[in-house]
């Protein structure tokens, strides 16, 4: 069964080149990728993740608001009983924030220079085959 991924852009920056490149790479790796477009609130992202029943959410943020937005997505997922959905982050994330995000429950942070192969490999390894 194909892995289902939501690629989402929380916050107000208008740069989704990176998100689109990742979305295409995941599609080419045989996954079903749902892309929701720019400027999504955490509430919109979580609701889309639930309706689409995705295995993983890839958040991309280049505005610097990741410390507020990423944990909020995790919180809402747990509130909706969907805490099992894997969440990763990407974009311009200062290195010192990475441990904090991971502590909050972000499974992995992919900074600039990450290859799409690395992302694909991470997802394949960490998404639990559902029963």
């Amino acid at each position, binding site marked *: 069964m194909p892995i*289902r991924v939501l690629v989402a852009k929380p916050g107000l920056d208008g740069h989704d080149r990176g998100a689109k490149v990742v979305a*295409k790479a995941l*599609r080419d*790796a045989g996954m079903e990728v749902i*892309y929701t477009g720019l400027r999504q609130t955490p509430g919109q992202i979580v609701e889309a993740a639930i309706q689409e*029943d995705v295995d993983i959410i890839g958040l991309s943020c280049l505005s610097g608001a990741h410390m507020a937005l990423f944990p909020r997505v995790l919180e809402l997922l747990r509130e909706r009983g969907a805490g099992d959905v894997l969440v990763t982050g990407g974009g311009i994330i200062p290195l010192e924030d990475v441990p904090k995000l991971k502590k909050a429950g972000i499974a992995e942070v992919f900074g600039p220079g990450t290859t799409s192969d690395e992302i694909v490999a991470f997802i394949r390894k960490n998404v639990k085959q559902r029963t």
Partner: protein
Amino acid sequence: MGLAEKVATGDRRAAARLISMIEDGDESVRTELADLHCRGGRAHIVGVTGSPGAGKSTLIHKLALEWRRRGRTVGIIAVDPSSPFTGGALLGDRIRMQELSTDRGVFIRSMSSRGNPGGVAKATADAVRVLDALGMDKVIVETVGAGQSEVAVMDVVHTVLVVVVPGLGDDIQAIKAGILEIGDLFVINKADRDGVEAAQRELEMMLELSSEKGPWTPPIVKTVARTGDGIPELVGKIDEHWEMIRREGLLEESERQRCRREVLELLKHKAVLSLLSEYGPDEFDALIHDVARRKLHPHDAVERIMGDKKRKN
């Protein structure tokens, strides 16, 4: 509590899970689906088809907003093709439906055809049952109107909208075969562009040629989905079609036809699987090899498979 029961109480996560299991062809949901089928049948199912770029997603977004204004709940199933090479898919219909994304009266699901044209219609029919059970008054099914499989997807709906845009004479040519016959309503979207009159004339002409006279003459509605022009009128016409079907006693007949097609499709699918399961994969490959080397006609290969089955019984 089973998934079907949870869906009936409005549990959106259960609905989403159930649709995934349907897509995966999971046999363990069969009883749940039977439950949904027997309890369901309330929703009006609307199909929207048309070439890529006709503005289907934007139009559906606006239709859903209009129905929400009128107090209706709306489910949306957007079917997109998967890549024939990797099986992956990029599903982007939600981009154009953002205003709906946190409305609890709306449920949007993107589905990929998973390289299996026959299967997508089957999964769509069951996904529609889930959204019906979730209490959606209107369930919209969106698909690119090219090819047999998309026409098959439209088999599961009560009302078919065919969306065209002006300025592409060939576009209307392309929808002639197959799609024109199944349209209950025609929408000329992007009607602020040049060529609207020509598109309308062409549609009218083809409709006159093809349609048999019944209680319903397919109307042609002009819209500009981006601005919302023509949307209330279109919603009015769609609801009118639904009322007409029920008033004229056509609903039962249409349900019967849809169920007949669905049962036949499932039967074909199962029959093929059961025939092949008794015929070993190696033997099957050998048979195909002979056909490819022109020692055997495909007809005779089929006869051989069916003959072997009879012998074994």
